[in-house]
């Protein structure tokens, strides 16, 4: 603060690793910023030789991609880190997982061998549980949504209220009953293409409300199951690490 940066040697990045991690249970209420702080502390606790940016206020080299919204759980979050000493990805996965609180879990670590990783995250698979919602009603709403060409929804963003189409990004939307929930529970599975603005699960729910007046009586439970490259023909999402493993 208010002082010139001293000259400092910056250790070069010798290895880049890509991580898949999950946000589970009550920690789904952590925001992306909350996760960032927890992750950067876990790097220190685990003794990871993270590389730092140059400059007056050095930052650890971590690139985050497409964070799931606060309140949504996720099985498929991704980030990339740069290291100043090469590490074994399996041991690093274990050490980081141990250093993070339970509920923020590191699932897989691969060495980055390819460029343009973020471009591979083309779509997400979302599981949206709607407690106390009748499966028939949910199915009818899903059909109505898929039959529409465009469903404009509104969302409050930092730039103010914004209207956009939530239909175009929804590539598929399936409805299934939940196992033995006595109050009834519909489970939606949606494949949603990433774009600008990104259509999020709450936008899909807003769209269902708009086309079929579907209003869940209890808060939905949302989980991102996967992110990855899209096969437009089959409308499925592939493994974004496939090319790095090859």
């Amino acid at each position, binding site marked *: *603060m*208010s002082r010139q940066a001293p000259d400092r040697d910056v250790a070069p990045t010798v290895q880049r690793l890509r991580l898949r991690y999950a946000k589970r249970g009550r920690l789904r209420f952590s925001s992306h910023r909350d996760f960032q*702080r927890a992750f*950067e502390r876990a790097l220190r606790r685990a003794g990871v030789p993270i590389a730092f940016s140059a400059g007056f206020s050095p930052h650890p080299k971590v690139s985050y991609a497409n964070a799931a919204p606060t309140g949504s759980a996720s099985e498929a979050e991704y980030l990339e880190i740069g290291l100043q000493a090469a590490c074994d990805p399996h041991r690093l996965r274990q050490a980081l997982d141990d250093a993070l609180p339970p*509920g923020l879990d590191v699932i897989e670590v691969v*060495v980055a061998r390819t460029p343009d990783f973020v471009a591979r995250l083309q779509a997400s698979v979302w599981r949206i549980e709607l407690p106390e919602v009748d499966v028939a009603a949910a199915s009818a709403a899903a059909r109505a949504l898929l039959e529409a060409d465009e469903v404009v929804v509104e969302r409050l963003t930092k730039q103010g209220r914004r209207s956009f189409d939530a239909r175009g990004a929804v590539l598929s939307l399936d409805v299934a009953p939940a196992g033995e929930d006595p109050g009834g529970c519909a489970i939606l599975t949606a494949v949603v293409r990433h774009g600008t603005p990104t259509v999020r699960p709450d936008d899909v729910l807003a769209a269902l409300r708009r086309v079929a007046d579907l209003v869940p009586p209890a808060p939905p439970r949302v989980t991102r199951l996967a992110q990855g490259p899209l096969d437009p023909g089959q409308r499925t999402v592939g493994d974004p690490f496939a090319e790095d493993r090859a």
Partner: protein
Amino acid sequence: MTITVPQQAARGESVFDRLERLLPQVSKPIQYVGGELNATLKPWDAVEVHWALMYPDAYEVGAPNQGVQILYEIINERQDALAERTYAVWPDLEALMREHGVPQFTVDGHRPVGDFDLLGVSFATELGYTNMLTALDLAGIPLQAASRDEGHPVVIAGGHAAFNPEPIADFIDAAVLGDGEQAVLLITDLVQAWKAQGRPGGRQGLLLELARTGSVYVPAFYDVHYLPDGRIQRVAPSRPDVPWRVRKHTLMDLDAWPYPKQPLVPLAETVHERMSVEIFRGCTRGCRFCQAGMITRPVRERSITGIAAMVDNGLRRTGYEEVGLLSLSSADHSEIGDVARNLADRYEGTQTALSLPSTRVDAFNVDLANELSRNGRRSGLTFAPEGGSERIRRVINKLVTEEDLIRTVTTAYAAGWRQVKLYFMCGLPTETDADVLQIATLAREVIKAGREATGRRDIRCTVSIGGFVPKPHTPFQWAAQLDHASTDARLMQLRDAIRADREYGKAIGLRYHDGKPGIVEGLLSRGDRRVGRAIEQAWRDGARFDGWSEHFSFDRWMQASQIALAGTGVDVDWFTTRERDRTEVLPWDHLDAGLDAEWLWEDWQDALDEVAVDDCRWTPCFDCGVCDQLGTQIQVGPTGVVDLPMPTARASVGSVLAGS
């Protein structure tokens, strides 16, 4: 407004399922879910004594609090007890909890606070009182202690504000003065024994056990008698087996208590994104306005080896990137130079920032800041002359000359800092407009000297100033508080004087707080039991989070006080802007902070005569009374340890994981 807790639930059962449904509808839900790194969750039935510990402010303020973290850990280390934490919920969640019948809960086990044996509330400031009432009400605990039965927790107040708990005497069962470490263990022992013996005497029996120790204040066992003019005639025990005075607790040998050993790392963002290590407790500088300095005597230092071990252990357990070396005046640690040098050496190249929240005005402080920030990261530099003129600084016993300040600030600018912050107070006893306007002159001299020393024009200083609130157990406890209109008028004069300065004004920033919140703080600080009704009325009228300007309403407090104090013959002015005389019985006179009343009065007279006193760490004892009355003594170095036998932290980084 009370919450009905479903009767069928077993004690200690989690309410998380019911809370979880509300969380998507509130702001920053992460603050309510717990699960912090290093948090402890014990099975309810495995222990005999259950403590809920509350910091009565938002999680972001309360979670980093050292006092709560220390007690949480000390209690949880016991086999027979557990402690969980609870914080004030924001109004959005409060409304939903009332609508859906969800009680005040702990963030660890999400257990209803009403199920615990004890609820300890730590008051760093009086502005948390209304938040305690919200928590009690949400917990289904009657607000009035007299209405509670054996099924309700014993509500105990601690923290600095508990040195005058009279305004909240109706709402609490007990108060503990001073250091909490040994006090919570004592109380836990007594509650454990009382429960094991089949609760002899019921709730009353337990409170009596606590009161008889002389270490726990139970307001219900003391009667307050008033004179016709509204002053207190006397405060006396209502039973023969309860002592006349209750004494504060003083923890000696900080090295034997290296807590927190497992600092909590919240997921939610908090006001202190760093780890803290308390390097000493107490202060004998003798600043007459400073309640903390008066009530935490004597000075007890942690040794250089103890500090280094806590820093090392804490960083390994938390992963924090910054460590704050805490105390009331950190540059005053007798071995601070060696502490700073050793820690800076050890963590060089690890991107670990060290900070010393010290506001001492001398060049040594700048050297320390340079040492601690030599690996690049540095926070701002703050100095606290507190008073604008040398005369007023003699009144408050802040022994800093204008030369000291100019020399110090010049050193800082020359060392590369471009901005410094200066703290002042407005409304000090005997203060005139001239004393406050002198701040503008001082700031101008600071900029002038900074420009000369560096040859640069981009030198800045920020003047931060707030209204002074007289506090119990200080020499200024008898003083008249300045009314808010006069405080504001003085601050406006200062603002205008700075603005009018064409040559230097633009380089001087002014941050000030208006005088109104200070009047409410003053009412709560020096109030007696009659003020309790005003607190409850203000709370019923909606007062919450009074320390937050966006929630605070002066008018609400004034209206509530008018209603609640009607017929008593006393009012807000009587409690705040009235000077007390020597013979007046003060509401906290029966609570013993160790300070000799004669000494306090003489120090007040010295203040009026503009006579300063020295620090007893370096000069002979001046009989403040603390060491004599409490059987304590100053614990300071040198320990003789200059260099720590520790490797640098850098060598170990990555060694475990490296090599693929």
